[in-house]
C-alpha cells in the first residue's frame, strides 16, 4: 500500500503537493502516554467503510490522566470516535479479529462484514472520550491541549473503542488509503479537574424531497453544578447546512438567544472543532442544539434512500443512519469540566 501511495504521489507531480504527505505522530513511551495506530487499509471507489477497533488501557501504571490529545486521519475520513466500552450488546470486542494497533494488541470488528459496527444502539451507553472529523489534506492532525488543570481519565484496564469511518464515493473521497492514529499524552503537572463529555443525537430525523428544508432541535440537560464547555463540534452529512449549539438554562422551551450560541458551523465535511471555548453553562442548565438541512437529489438516484426509509414514503427521504451517501445524522459532541460525579451525559 505504501508503495502504491508513493507511485500515485509521483504520478501526481513528484510530490509537489504537500497534501499527499502522510501524517506522522510521535510514538509515545508508556511514560509519555499511549499511542494507537490503525493499519492502513484500502477504501475502494464507491465504498463506505466503518471499523471498530478495541484495545485496553495498560493496567500497569494506574490510571492514565491525559492533558493533550492528538488525533490523526488520512484524508477521506468521515469521523473517528473513541468511546469507553460499557454494556456489550451485539458489538462484541471478543468477536473481532486480532490486530496490532502500533504495538498495542487489540481486536477489530469490520463493518463490511459485521453490521453491528454500524449500529449506534450497540454503544448507546459507551461514554465518549474524544472525536475528530478533521482529515483535510492540510489538516490531518487534530492536536488538542486541554485547558490548564484539566485532564481526561483513561482508567487502567478499561476497554476502549476507536471507531473509524471512511468514504470514497460522491460526498467524500479517500484519495489513497484509510488510516487513523491517536496519541494520549500523560499529564505530569497534577491536573485536578477531570474532563467530561456530552454526546447527544437527534432521533428519527427525516429530510425529504417534499419538505426539503427541515430543522431539528433538541436539548440535553446537565446535572446541577458549575460546568464550563471547552470544546465542541457537530456532526451531520452532506444535506446538513448549519449546526448550532447554545448554552441553555434548563427550563425554557424556546431557543436561546444568539448571545448564548457558542458553536455555529456550516461545513458538514470538515466541521469546526472549537477548542478554545470557555463557556460557562447556567447552573442548572445544559445545551440546546439544532440542525438545518437542505434536501438534494442523491447522485445515484433515490432508490437506495427510499429503500432504507422505515416509513416507505417513496419521497426520497434521508433518514437517521450512519451512511454518508444515503442517510443523515444530527449529533453533538461537547467537552466540559469538571466531569459530573454521577456518570456521563448522553441524550438520545
Amino acid at each position: 500500500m505504501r508503495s502504491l501511495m508513493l507511485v500515485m504521489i509521483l504520478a501526481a507531480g513528484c510530490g509537489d503537493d504537500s497534501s499527499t504527505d502522510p501524517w506522522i505522530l510521535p510514538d509515545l513511551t508508556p511514560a509519555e502516554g499511549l499511542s494507537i495506530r490503525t493499519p492502513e487499509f484500502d477504501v475502494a471507489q464507491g465504498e463506505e467503510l466503518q471499523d471498530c477497533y478495541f484495545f485496553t488501557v495498560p493496567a500497569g501504571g494506574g490510571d492514565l490522566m491525559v492533558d493533550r490529545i492528538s488525533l490523526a486521519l488520512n484524508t477521506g475520513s468521515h469521523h473517528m470516535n473513541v468511546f469507553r466500552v460499557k454494556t456489550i450488546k451485539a458489538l462484541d470486542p471478543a468477536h473481532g479479529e486480532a490486530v496490532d494497533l502500533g504495538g498495542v494488541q487489540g481486536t477489530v470488528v469490520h463493518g463490511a462484514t459485521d453490521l453491528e459496527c454500524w449500529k449506534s444502539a450497540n454503544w448507546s451507553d459507551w461514554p465518549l472520550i474524544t472525536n475528530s472529523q478533521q482529515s483535510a489534506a492540510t489538516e490531518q492532525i487534530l492536536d488538542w491541549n486541554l485547558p490548564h488543570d484539566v485532564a481526561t481519565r483513561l482508567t487502567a484496564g478499561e476497554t476502549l473503542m476507536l471507531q473509524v469511518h471512511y468514504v470514497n464515493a460522491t460526498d467524500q473521497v479517500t484519495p489513497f488509503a484509510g488510516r487513523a492514529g491517536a496519541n494520549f499524552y500523560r499529564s505530569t503537572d497534577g491536573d485536578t479537574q477531570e474532563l467530561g463529555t456530552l454526546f447527544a443525537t437527534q432521533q428519527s430525523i427525516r429530510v425529504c424531497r417534499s419538505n426539503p428544508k427541515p430543522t431539528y432541535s433538541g436539548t440535553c440537560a446537565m446535572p446541577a453544578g458549575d460546568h464550563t464547555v471547552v470544546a465542541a463540534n457537530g456532526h451531520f452529512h452532506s444535506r446538513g447546512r448549519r449546526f448550532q449549539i447554545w448554552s441553555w438554562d434548563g427550563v425554557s422551551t424556546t431557543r436561546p438567544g444568539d448571545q448564548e450560541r457558542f458553536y455555529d458551523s456550516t461545513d458538514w465535511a470538515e466541521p469546526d472543532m472549537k477548542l478554545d471555548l470557555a463557556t460557562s453553562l447556567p447552573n442548572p442548565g445544559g445545551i440546546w442544539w439544532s440542525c438545518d438541512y437542505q434536501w438534494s437529489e442523491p447522485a445515484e438516484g433515490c432508490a437506495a434512500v427510499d429503500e432504507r426509509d422505515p416509513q416507505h414514503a417513496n419521497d426520497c427521504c434521508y433518514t437517521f443512519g450512519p451512511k454518508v451517501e444515503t442517510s443523515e445524522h444530527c449529533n453533538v459532541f461537547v467537552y466540559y469540566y469538571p466531569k459530573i460525579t454521577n456518570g456521563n451525559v448522553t441524550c438520545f
Partner: protein
Amino acid sequence: MLLTRAACIVVLAGGCVWPGGDDAPSDCDLTGDLDAEIVFADQLGTVARVADQPNVPLISAPQGGHILLIGARVRATVTSCSVEVNAALRDPATSRVIGLEQRPVTIASHGTEWAGPPPMIGLSDIANVAVCPSAAISTSIDAHPYQVEVRVDVAGLAIAHATATITPTCNDTYCHMDCSPAGN
C-alpha cells in the same frame, strides 16, 4: 403510512408551500391561540390522547435510549398543514426540562374538527422526546408523574399550547434501569 402518503399527494397537487421549505405543501392559514390537546404514540404507532390515557409508554429508540412520542392536535380544519411541534418533559419538582425536541410534522383534520397526526404514525411523524438516560433527574422517570408541554408553531409563530400531567411508563427491566438516576 397510507394516510400520510395520500395527504402528501393531495397537497402536492394543490401546489401549496410548506413553511419549512420552498417546495413543501401546506394549507396552513392557522393563526391565533387555538385549542390544543396533547397526544402520544405507542411503540406500534397508535396515537391516543393523554387525556384518555395518562400512562405514556417509554419507547426503546432505534438509536438507543428511551423516548416519549409526543404531539398535539389543534381545533382546526385543514387538509394538510406542516407545523413545528415543540414538546418537552418537565420535572414538576424542580421545574427542569428533562428532554425537549422540536421538529416539523404534518397535521390534518382527517374528517374531524381537530387537526393532528393520523391515527397511525411512524417515528418521524411526531416529536421524539429523549428522556432516558438523563443526567438531570433525581428520581426515576418510570412510573412517576411529569409535566408534558407542547407548543405548535406555524412559520415561527405559536398557534397553540397545551400542558398535561403524564406518567411515563416502562414495559421492561432495561427501560426501568435506563430511566433511573443510576441509569445514567
